[in-house]
């Protein structure tokens, strides 16, 4: 059994908008969401810019009716997941089998931080209600129950490639006929834990990040959530909806080089892109746009660029851009956020500019686009997500 996998609905919340429409508007207007920290409480508030969603937990909770006491990651997850289902016209009464496969990297860490403020001083103190959502899976379950999805529920966590892996776990289940619908994607809220973690690695830019620039100095962290409702052909008939696009290729490879750094030759990235082209059964020359992982760190951009050069050598280099200069690096959500942007590119024939790129990297014969391009014919988009632990994943989205 091998069925095509369609994208029937999408939902997203990031620092550049709290739904699909506002994200698209900001992308078209070249408006970044990265700026001064407002909701996250940290001593680095004035020093490290972040791509924060512009709502308090209480305001986020009002959008869905979820409790403001649950982790911020769950609140973001609920908003984007619900939008994707509504967008597709999915409802609980459909007889089809629906799964929910979500990614995140630190579960309810924001609440655990609160708990540890007390617990670390006295093991009998700290409210237990603050640790019940600590596990990554607990965040997914909260929203699975909220959406009333029960058939198959799972959580993936492979650092910054988490949601790309969640997306193709769902795609594979549809292709093999195990599910008719798979709500796939990821969510991650900013936490002091991750902010300080990345800060100790000295890869955070104190100014706005400049992916793929010769003078790039690091990444900015962001937060958000994005979900896609994947559907089989049978599912589309039930929804009576024409799909945005197909997901045609995917691959996961491991760099097997270092726990946090990419190999200089970008072995894992190269194998992921090549593998995705093989599963999609297309040639490098068929790719019209690459949504880069493009974090803005020295290490990522040189490794990713080197791998792209190896994959596309001898062909015309496709148009490409990193959208992390808009949203910051949303970690476990980034693969899904960029999957949504890739599908928007196909749907509207738009290529989004790589903001703030002034001096292209001297190593490469190609450079990301810096201007918005409209009226493009985009058949195939390659989207990259690479993470700690050498986890590299590439996805290919194709016009339906």
């Amino acid at each position, binding site marked *: 059994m091998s069925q095509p996998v369609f994208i029937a609905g999408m939902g997203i919340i990031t620092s550049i908008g709290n739904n699909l429409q506002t994200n698209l508007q900001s992308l078209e207007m070249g408006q970044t969401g990265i700026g001064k920290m407002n909701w996250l409480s*940290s*001593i*680095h508030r004035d020093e490290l810019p972040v791509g924060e969603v512009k709502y308090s937990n209480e305001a986020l909770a009002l959008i869905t009716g979820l409790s403001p006491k649950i982790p911020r990651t769950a609140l973001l997850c609920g908003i984007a997941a619900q939008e994707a289902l509504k967008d597709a016209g999915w409802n609980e009464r459909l007889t089809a089998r629906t799964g929910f496969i979500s990614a995140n*990297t*630190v579960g309810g860490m924001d609440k*655990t*931080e609160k708990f*540890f*403020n007390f*617990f*670390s001083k006295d*093991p*009998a103190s700290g409210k*237990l209600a603050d*640790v019940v959502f600590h*596990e*990554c*899976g*607990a965040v997914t*379950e909260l929203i*699975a129950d909220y959406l009333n999805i*029960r058939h*198959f*529920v*799972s*959580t*993936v*966590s*492979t*650092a910054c490639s988490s949601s790309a*892996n969640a997306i193709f*776990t769902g795609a*594979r*289940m549809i292709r*093999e006929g*195990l599910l008719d619908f798979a709500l796939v994607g990821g969510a991650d809220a900013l936490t*002091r*834990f991750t902010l*300080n*973690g990345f*800060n*100790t*690695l000295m890869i955070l830019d104190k100014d706005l990040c400049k992916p793929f620039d010769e003078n790039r100095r690091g990444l900015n962290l962001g937060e958000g959530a994005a979900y896609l409702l994947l559907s089989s052909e049978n599912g589309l008939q039930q929804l009576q909806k024409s799909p945005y696009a197909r997901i045609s290729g995917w*691959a*996961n*490879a*491991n*760099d*097997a*080089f*270092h*726990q*946090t750094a990419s190999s200089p030759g970008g*072995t894992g990235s190269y*194998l992921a892109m090549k593998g995705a082209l093989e599963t999609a059964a297309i040639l490098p020359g068929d790719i019209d746009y690459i949504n880069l992982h493009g974090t803005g760190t020295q290490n990522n951009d040189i490794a990713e660029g080197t791998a792209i050069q190896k994959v596309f050598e001898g062909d015309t280099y496709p148009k490409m851009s990193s959208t992390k200069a808009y949203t910051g690096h949303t970690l476990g959500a980034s693969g899904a956020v960029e999957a949504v942007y890739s599908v928007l590119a196909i749907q509207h024939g738009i290529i989004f500019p790589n903001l703030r790129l002034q001096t292209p990297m001297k190593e490469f014969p190609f450079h990301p686009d810096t201007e918005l391009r409209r009226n493009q014919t985009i058949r195939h988009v390659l989207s990259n997500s690479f*993470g*700690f*632990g*050498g*986890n590299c994943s590439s996805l290919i989205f194709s016009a339906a």
Partner: protein
Amino acid sequence: MKIYIRSTGNISPQHSLDKTSFFLSRVKTTHNYFKSLEPDYDDFVDSKMIRRMSRVVKMGVAAAITCLRQAKMDCPGSILTATAYGCLEDSDAFLRKMIEFDEKMLSPTAFIQSTHNTVGAQIALLLKCHHYNNTIVHSSFSFENALTEASLLLKDSLGPVLVGAVDEITEDRHTILSRFGLYRKTAKNEGNIAGEGAAFFLLDNEPGDSPQAILRDVQTLHKPETPEAIQDAIREILQTNGLQIDQIDLVLTAHRNRKKLDEADDELLKTVFQNNHCYPYKSLCGDYPTATGFALWFAALLLKEQKPPQWMEGYRFPLKNILIHHHNGNDHHSFILISAC
């Protein structure tokens, strides 16, 4: 499904790395936690690398290497790691330092090793294995969902899949879960014991030289509304696989030695399983979300050896089919069906 378990590797509170000892004696605990009997890790990993690894990573890596050595496999087609809690020791360490030093003067080491995919990543790094690598972190369904993913990967013909379940007890985890009233207060009390372990399996479409057992089915049941729904799920699994309940020679049950926690299990003993031989596997490995890793290892070993350990009396052998049941406070029920080759 018909998937061969070609080899296994297990680090647990029992003598699971040494078959002879395991069959001879059963380890018991007087505490309310059951920690793994850890091997000399120098036998598995370069000592410089070991120093940088936390306990959960060491257990995971050593279990994975044991499994691969047995099958003489250098680099499997895919590596899947299931863990509910991930790398707690390192994430708690970073969290405590961050709070203690008010976000200043932190070292990256603990953070780097704190991500949930560290075990899978370190296995790939050690093997220099560039193949598919994923980590599933869904509480008590982590290992079951990884097995489902493994079955799909095997359809893609990417080669054998290394899949494992890993979770560790840390002081903080134990203190916090004890405050929820999960564990027994003293050795005399009836009650639950915290557990941990790392169990890895090499799954393949082909039997290889000396297969252990055949994995037939994996099913999960998310928050069943009634006890009947659980019984229906069991009947469905049997029916799908063309089995009658009396053909299940052994049921490994999720009992936790405490009436209140065991209501669902006792109900099954009175109904569906009333005529089956049952054994509570958590008495061997303790209670933790990915304990089905231990149960699957135990089942595969019994099916391969076809004899009971000396401490397991009154059970009928040989065995053909074993059903493993797992649940976590009635939220997550899962079933794994495994048969002799």
